[in-house]
């Protein structure tokens, strides 16, 4: 897996970042406080950790992401498939279809998108 792991709480942070980047650390702290209820120190710690992992970068107090939202989502999906469906796309799709009650056509279309 090339994309670094992002924990749930960090993911929510990234959501804010992706929506607002590039953004100063100060502004980020404020946003995190409002949305997530984080203390200033917590936000800084998380930024630092994510920097170390290569998820975000902090240049002179301006934070921007190194991994896009889509990349992160796909990475999660891959992990999900590996863990829960032993990497079998058909199995995943079958489960997904069962829940979503898709028509055959829709399923075909989705399969094509994924296998692209």
């Amino acid at each position, binding site marked *: 897996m090339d994309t670094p792991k992002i*924990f749930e709480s960090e993911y929510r942070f990234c959501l804010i970042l992706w929506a607002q980047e590039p953004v100063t650390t100060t502004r980020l702290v404020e946003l995190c406080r409002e949305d*997530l209820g*984080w203390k200033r120190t917590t936000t800084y710690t998380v930024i630092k950790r994510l920097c170390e992992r290569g998820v975000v970068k902090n240049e002179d107090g301006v934070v921007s992401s190194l991994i896009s939202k889509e990349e992160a989502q796909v990475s999660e999906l891959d992990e999900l498939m590996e863990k829960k469906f032993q990497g079998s796309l058909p199995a995943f799709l079958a489960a997904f279809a069962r829940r979503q009650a898709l028509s055959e056509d829709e399923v075909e279309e989705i399969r094509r998108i994924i296998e692209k």
Partner: protein
Amino acid sequence: MEAVFLKLVNLSISAGWLVLAVLALRLVFRRAPRWVFCLLWALVALRLVCPFSLESALSLVPSAQTLPPEILYTAEPQIHSGIPAINSAVNPLLGQSMAPAPGQSANPTQVWSFILSCIWMAGMCVMALYALVSCWLLKRRVATATLLRENIRQSERVDTPFVLGLFRPVIYLPYHMGEGDLEYVIAHERSHIRRKDHWWKPLGFALLTVYWFNPLLWLAYVLLCRDIEGACDEKVIREMELEDRRGYSTALLNCSVHRRSIAACPLAFGEVGVKERVKAVMNYKRPAFWLVAAALAACALAAVCFLTDPPAGREFSMDGTGVADLDPQEIVERIAKLEKLEDGSKLYVNGDNFELSFTRDFQWKDSGTVRFFYLRDQETYSAQLRIFADEKKYFVTEGDQWPEQDRIFMLQSYLEAVKYLPREKVRELLPEAEGYVVQLVEGGTPGEAGRSLTYTAQGVNAIDGWFIHLRVDPVYGGNEGIPAEESIHLFYGGESAAPAVTKWFDYTASPSDMDWDGELALELPQFPDVTFSYTPERITAQGWKFLGRKYTLVTGMPIWNGYFCDLTGDGLPELCVTYSWGSGMIDTRVSVYDYAVGNRYNIEGRGERDYALRYNQEDGLLYVDVRPYEQDRVIASGPLVFRDGCLQIMDSSLEWQDGAQITCLPGDYDLDRDGTPETVELATYFDESLRYEARVVRADGTVLWRDAAYTVHSGYNSVFLCRLEDGDYLLRYHPTMYQGYATYAYELFYLDGEGNPITVRENSISFDLNQDPAMHESFDPEAIAGFMEELNGLLAHSKLLMTTDTALDGMDPDHPRDELWWLKEEEFGSGYAYDESRSLRENLVEYAKQFS
């Protein structure tokens, strides 16, 4: 620290009984709501927190003070658990294992008390540390928890929901909880917060850190946690229907985690006994009113029965069956408490009292009765102390009003007199008796009535005045228990003022036990931070006084014994030793070192007498045994005392070496310039007139030179030892003054081989202080100043050997200086005031002005 620990142990034992009661109640009232149980645990906490409690007849606590305070240091520890079975099982074992070995300075109980207290402290610190650290770690873990709403946060690092925080409690949830579960969980945690559980649980743990040594309290804590959860569950589902309850149980199950640790802070949702909780939730029924009422009543009862202490009854137990087992202080205190009197001193007895019967061994025969009186609201009351020896208990009857009494004695003194009566001596004087009868007598004096003995608590002794007069009559076999008229009169009196003697070491009887390579160290509470150290050749003291160095107090060849005793009456003990000394002729001497002041006193008789210290068991005093040199027979012996500023042996038959007592001046002085130092001594004579003799003694013991000083005016003398660069000298100084006319003179000299003085310097000056011009002759301030400067210059290098001249009163023997006492006396100077900031010369000049 040990006293605090003891109190806590006693409290925890009392609480332990309550815990057992709570456990029983929990069983009986299974179906009662859990919050009632929480109330019960609150009672336990109350018990642990409150050091005071009321007494109540309803108390079921076996004993308020299972471990009595004296167990910390006594030689015979006993527990009063309030349950005879436990007492008789434990006390003998205690007595055996804690019996002090003879010669030990600290009882095993003291040692153990200290050790156990330290262990308790350590345990407490460990617990506190654990709680603080785990809380802090947890806080760190959930730092990145994101806010859901209000005070609810979620984090990927939370496994099972919990509440954290004292003042602003926050509910922590995991991410991705099912919708249904979420609401139930939040309701549960909210309920915790409303019930203030986030306070109670930490409080419980805090109590556990202090009382960690009591296993019952650990059980209590675990059950408390369970009951808190149960109470919380009940609060949440109280209004729920079955459907909701299913949902709640599912939520419980989903969030349960197999954690077995005992956490201090977080109130975790799924942590505690999930199976039981699910069962309880599903089977929940609103409890019937009567059940709750009954449970609450039981709570109240438990509070009364277990939060109160058992009352001190009119009956209390006796420790033994003989007079020696009496505890007068305790008896008197108990009675005072019973009758609500200030203290035991308000209890009196007099001659209108009962006879006490004893067996030959002075064990109680039949039951004894002591009538006593007390005053209340200005009325006299009489009651009786009944002594039931066969049932081993005392009983105090209710008091009746009584007419005022004239002669009264203290009940405590009477009990003491009975306790300490000299049984051996009585048996000696009345050997044929089968038993004895004791009667309190008013009046009488020792000596006037037939056979009489005076005694104190220490035994047969001279007394200072008597407190209680007892008459003892023997009972013979054939007389049908009627005592014969062969009385012995016993007078119990004032405690002998024997100063306490602390033994350090004594090898006089066992010289082979002396360890020549070893060292005995001793510290005394009266001299904090000072360590006394003994080797057979030397006793040193190490402390602040000597800047941490070891200062030699005594040297000997060897030092035989050492005791500490306050002879001087200054409240601090002096070191009293017996040691041998000499070359060629080795004699034994007694030396007393007054550490507080730094003085040394000796009793010796070189070549003629041997003096040795002995501790006398009978009267607790240090005796000095006097023997002729190198002989074994004791020719005189008496207590060592300090009177009139010097050591004395209280034995009028004693013959002193020349009737004098010798003190050595420390230091080596070579006064005859022969290269070997002489010893300088001061001999004190107390025949008709107190006089001193200063002597210079050669190494072989012969006296090289001597000079006397008398306490009468004509015999005033002052001698100093002066050490100058070119050698040691003697300095004699006569500041004589008579009727205002003064002649001050000094001579500085050393000695020749025969002891004749060789004067190297001398000077004198005359003047007078008469203010009446008709009488006044001369006063030359400059000349006087010059003389004093010379003299004080010599004194600056001198030490005072002896002086009887009152003009030199208050002179510091180690830094002698004459400041001219009459300069500071107001009556000798009119219009003149001594000024400390001025020099002696300037003051003299000022002083001289009054004569012109």
